[in-house]
């Protein structure tokens, strides 16, 4: 089992994915940590984020390099895609909802065995998406997962 990290920074807004973790054809990811913040000039902007499973992967966007927590470890099988992108097709229900002021930094950590698991298949994965926002705050996200 490998443990990996990936980070991406982009503007939030209405239904915009910040970062999506896509399964491979045979390997799933288990997301166990999220850190959401902003490096922009401090301002009061409220944004609602949701972590949601997707059943069709996004397109274009930014290819984000995954980093193993152990440099000796093999490269990740799952794929990271950063926004702005052609949006994936998401499920209706979210897995985690975060409403956040741009000034705040939010950290979520799963206990072992309670991670968000993706399903196999390159079309499947999970993405953190800004659902609505009072502006277009730049958002930084770090995601950690095991596979």
């Amino acid at each position: 089992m490998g443990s990996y990290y990936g980070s991406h920074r982009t503007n939030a807004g209405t239904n915009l994915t910040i970062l999506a973790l896509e399964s491979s054809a045979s390997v799933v990811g288990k997301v166990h940590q999220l850190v959401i913040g902003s490096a922009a000039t401090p301002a009061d902007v409220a944004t609602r984020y949701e972590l949601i499973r997707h059943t069709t992967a996004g397109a274009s966007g930014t290819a984000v390099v995954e980093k193993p927590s152990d440099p000796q470890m093999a490269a990740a099988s799952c794929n990271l895609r950063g926004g702005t992108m052609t949006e994936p097709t998401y499920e209706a229900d979210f897995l985690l909802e975060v409403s956040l002021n741009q000034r705040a930094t939010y950290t979520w950590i799963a206990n072992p065995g309670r991670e968000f698991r993706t399903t196999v298949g390159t079309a499947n994965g999970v993405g953190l998406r800004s659902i609505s926002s009072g502006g277009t705050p730049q958002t930084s996200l770090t995601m950690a997962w095991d596979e």
Partner: protein
Amino acid sequence: MSAYRMGRAAGYISIVSPDHAPIERDTLQCVHCGGHWSLEPGSGKQRGFCMICNGPHCGRPGCWNCVPLEKRLEELERRAAFAAAAGLQ
């Protein structure tokens, strides 16, 4: 610091902001959809407990009937495999 902590939590959140003291919350995980939420006493949100899975569920409409998380994930995977085999993806 504002904190709601509990035993047998599924996760933990921390919010640090210059506007207020750090907030810490434990989270529970829905046994049906896998979603996490933090307890907010007095929020009025209706959650549930599945006697079959022996765990809490988030209370969303799709989670009141017992479909265990693993079964749900398997269904999603079968659906994706079928779509791929049928050339729909």
